């Protein structure tokens, strides 16, 4: 099991040099570098050169570059303004830079719906598989940027650690021989009033019963989510993934990564029992609900 984040925890940096050419790397923020490494590592793991589509979720995009350019504007007193931070500050810089690194000419999309940004990218990828593509790269990244936005205030001053992260995945039309995990469904719902009802509807649509689910990875900023979920599931099945991921807008991508690790091992992170089916329930913003169903097949 991954240990819980501590205020003293530090962000881990992989060896970026083996993934990103030096010239490109120098201009990149940590968030961009993390996303690029995850994307390239994903492709390397299955020996794939080019994905058939790329879909990325990010709430804040390249917020560090945005802030840098904003600061330049307010302190600007004539002369020339360097465009570099502006050029790299669009939300689709992450997905765009991945296409440049790979030389990929396929579909390239960026979804930016605060805490549901990743679910939207994942759904986009799932639709590409349904439309007949073989391998789709989906992922999410958000930077840690305390000054620029009020994420903690907006997310109800939770007692969780503000951080950043990137996670990428390959969705394939065929099951992996070594690690056959099925993304059964993904659902994104805005302006939700009844979380319990929406969870039940999704389970029913997929012929799943609440009792069949071995683990529920959930994130919430208020007590009601856990209360509603505990009316459907045993409390022991509920696991708050933000304890290990920390808080950032697209941390449900971390939850998917965590879920696939758990399913690969087949073991519950806390209890001595096997895990074959997982529900991820992202309800960080009370009115936004992201749901994912995963199964080891």
């Amino acid at each position, binding site marked *: 099991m991954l240990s819980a984040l501590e205020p003293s925890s530090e962000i881990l940096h992989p060896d970026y040099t083996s993934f990103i050419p030096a010239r490109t790397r120098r201009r990149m923020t940590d968030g961009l570098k993390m996303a690029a490494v995850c994307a390239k590592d994903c492709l390397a793991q299955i020996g794939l050169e080019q994905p058939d589509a790329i879909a990325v979720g990010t709430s804040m995009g390249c917020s560090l570059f945005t802030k840098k350019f*904003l600061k330049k*504007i307010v302190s600007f007193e004539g002369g020339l303004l360097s465009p570099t931070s502006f050029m790299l500050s669009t939300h689709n810089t992450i997905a765009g*830079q991945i296409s440049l690194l790979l030389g990929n000419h396929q579909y*390239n*999309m960026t979804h930016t*719906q605060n805490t549901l940004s990743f679910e939207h990218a994942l759904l986009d990828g799932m*639709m590409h598989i349904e439309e007949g593509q073989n391998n789709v790269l989906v992922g999410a990244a958000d930077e840690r940027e305390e000054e620029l936005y009020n994420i903690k205030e907006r997310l109800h001053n939770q007692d969780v650690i503000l951080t950043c992260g990137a996670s990428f995945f390959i969705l394939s039309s065929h099951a992996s021989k070594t690690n056959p995990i099925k993304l059964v469904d993904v659902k994104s719902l805005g302006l939700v009033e009844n979380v319990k009802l929406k969870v039940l509807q999704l389970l029913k649509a997929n012929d799943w019963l609440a009792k069949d689910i071995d683990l529920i990875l959930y994130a919430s900023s208020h007590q009601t989510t856990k209360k509603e979920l505990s009316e459907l599931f045993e409390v022991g099945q509920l696991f708050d993934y933000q304890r290990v991921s920390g808080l950032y807008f697209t941390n449900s991508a971390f939850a998917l990564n965590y879920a696939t690790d758990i399913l690969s091992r087949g073991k519950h992170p806390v209890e001595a029992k096997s895990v074959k089916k997982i529900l991820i329930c992202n309800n960080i913003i009370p009115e936004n609900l992201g749901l994912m169903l995963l199964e080891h097949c």
Partner: protein
Amino acid sequence: MELFVTGIGVMTAIGNTVAENFHSLKVARTGIQRSAKLGLMLGEVSFSNEEIIEKLGLTKIDYSRTTLLGMLAAKEAWGKNEHKEEIATGLISATSAGGMDRIEKYFAQAHHEGMDTSRRMTYENGRTTEGIAKELGIKGYIGTISTACSSGANAIMHGARLIQSGRLDRVLVGGVDPLVDYNIKGFSSLGIYAEGICTPFDQNRKGLNLGEGAAFLVLESAASLSITGNKPLCLLSGWDNSTDAFHQTASSADGKGATLAMKHALKKAKLLAKDISYVNVHGTGTQNNDLSESAALRNVFGHKMPPFSSTKSFTGHTLAAAGAIEAVYCILSLRSNAIFPSLNFSTPIKATGLIPATSFREKVEVKHALTNAFGFGGNCTCLIFSKKM
């Protein structure tokens, strides 16, 4: 599966409604003017935030201009549609600025007064879309796309795919961007902001002028139509997004991404290049875009280029809204059998020799209209709208 367009709404520097936009396109009246405040050529929407708040009868007043412009255009498109349990309805908007207009005010205040107001800031794009959804009472799939200047076209494409996949029956799709200092300074810093009025596809073009606006479309499946009884305006028949993978902000000389997007969209629509009656080009008026796009147009249409125009000479470049605004203009072209002019054109680009339509033409049979939208990150999108046969 057929995808029906049953509602449109638009507001730009040339009008606050579909009818006003059509009239300005017809009489060749640009909305780009020199701003007294900034000294730059801008395409500003005539309504102030206060006027929009009053028109919509809003009680909350601290909305971003992005949300406000979006609400008005979305309401025009939505029209008399009603919410029904059996019609799965969604909203997909596109924006690049998000709540930037409000952040800029805070940032300037913080800088000038040495105050730390920065912690109160947010420019989450998604919140502007949620504001529009709340105003229209749409719940469920509420999404925002942000791929710079192709965002609006991508929102339309994404809505189409959600209907095609069976996840939605009806979706309001579009894009919105207000004029913000951030983008004005940004495009100026790139050296591509024209001092005078933009002259798309002209050999002597000097860059773009920014504009603001919003546009929304209602897309429906046949099943949705049978319940709503809405009359289709036309079909969304083809779409594609492809990537140039050449440079973060510049387009390739051979227009690879744009060529792929147009070819794939034609294939999706089961059409040939010769079937296209009108092209609303991306045509920003920058040296790089117009040269790259004309190379792509030559790749796709060869020497049989259909009538085309850049309506950015009317509205300015409205960034994330552009793809949606120009989609509405394509629908107007189909509906009225009209070709809209490109303004300020005099000399063809030497390398490609393409000549846009320069006057308003009626009584032209427009069966299929194609529109391009390209953005930073080499993001290239093409949409095709067709008359319902």
